[in-house]
């Protein structure tokens, strides 16, 4: 029965991640629908606000619905899923080491809290053992690169000028963001009320999103129209994408030809 309960938690977590994933796709579609695929050009970290908030909201709603009355289990459910994912993924990719830091420090804090507050409800002392997650965040300097990579990847996908509703990279990014959301940042009971009319999560957001918000910065804004012009891409009938004969984009009026069939577009 314990295994059933654990697997149920895993199922709920996966559902929460999927909901975050769906939310980010919806945001991507909406942004493209409103011809707004470029915020990441000038404010790359805006991705965390535009995509991060819907992810957290959706995940909190799912957890709240399925773990009604036992919201404290959110943290445990997420950690179980991450641990299982890590065990399975480690044979295929080195990326799994990201999870080892997250799971390792998270569970270490939890064990210490269990020892320290023996006989008490350790979730009442949630804030103490969350300190270990701060260690995880601090040590995880790879996270800094993850931010940069996320921003770079979104920028690159914008560079392609394909303007699709979404592309593979963006989908992958959405998936990563959904899974990478840090669960149980505050005691979930505090912001995920059983009746989710009181969704306080908008005020007590995931620190990984909050921390990124001050990083929002504007740069290169004045250059963007020019960059747009000479980085323009067109789709050829053969299925290929246009390339410019301009050397390093020096000539903004350069002829565009298909990179696949060499036809001038």
């Amino acid at each position, binding site marked *: *029965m*314990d*295994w059933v*309960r*654990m697997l149920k938690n895993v199922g709920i977590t996966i559902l929460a991640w999927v909901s975050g994933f769906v939310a980010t796709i919806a945001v991507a579609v909406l942004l493209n629908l409103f011809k707004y695929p470029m915020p990441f*050009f000038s404010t790359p970290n805006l991705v965390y606000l535009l995509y991060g908030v819907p992810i957290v909201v959706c995940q909190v709603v799912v957890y709240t619905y399925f773990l009604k009355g036992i919201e404290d289990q959110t943290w*445990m459910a997420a*950690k*179980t899923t991450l*641990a*299982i994912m*890590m*065990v399975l993924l*480690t*044979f295929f*990719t*080195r*990326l*799994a*080491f*990201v*999870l*080892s830091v997250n*799971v*390792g420090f998270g*569970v270490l804090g*939890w*064990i210490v809290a269990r020892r320290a507050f023996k006989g008490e409800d350790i979730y009442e002392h949630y804030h103490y053992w969350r300190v270990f997650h701060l260690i995880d965040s*601090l*040590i995880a*300097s*790879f996270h800094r*690169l*993850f931010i*940069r*990579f996320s*921003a*770079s*990847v979104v*920028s*690159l996908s*914008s*560079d*392609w000028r394909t303007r699709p509703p979404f592309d593979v*990279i963006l989908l*992958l990014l959405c998936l990563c963001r959904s899974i990478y959301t840090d669960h149980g940042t505050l005691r979930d009971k505090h912001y995920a009320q059983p009746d989710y009319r009181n969704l306080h999560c908008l005020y007590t957001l995931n620190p990984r999103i909050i921390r990124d918000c001050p990083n929002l910065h504007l*740069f*290169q804004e004045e*250059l963007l129209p*020019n*960059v747009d012009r*000479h*980085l323009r891409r067109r789709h050829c009938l053969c299925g290929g994408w246009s390339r410019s004969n301009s050397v*390093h*984009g*020096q000539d903004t009026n350069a002829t565009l030809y298909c990179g696949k069939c060499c036809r001038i577009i």
Partner: protein
Amino acid sequence: MEAYAKSAKYPYGTSIGEEIFQRGLIPSDTDFRIFRDFLNVPGLDFAFVKNGWVYHTKYDSIENIPQGSLQNVGTNILALTQTLGNLDFSEIQFSDAKMVFTDVFGYFMVVYTERTGILINLLIGLATIYLIWKDCKLSRCCCCLYHNHS
């Protein structure tokens, strides 16, 4: 990688970047590929990841690169070259083993082989699953006791 970890004064890197790049998720390539693909020469790639859209455009100028970034790369490469220059390459055994690496606060690098990484991940993962399972069992007992008591 070990030479970089030992010598770089401002290490900054992670195998995440390498993994993402090698899996072709970044639509870009390296000028080093010709040495890698045809001469099988091992090497290290250094890249600036921010403000990437000016790359290979007319805006790709020195003004758009923070001087601190240039200084960091220069310092690291100088130290790395000095370390590599003092190595006896006849004693070095080349292998295709992939490494897991990450910097910690930009002060030092943690480097270990992929095999060690798998062992660490399995150890942490399985221990976590076991502990959580144990907790589930205990909390269920507590629940039973609570319900019986009430």
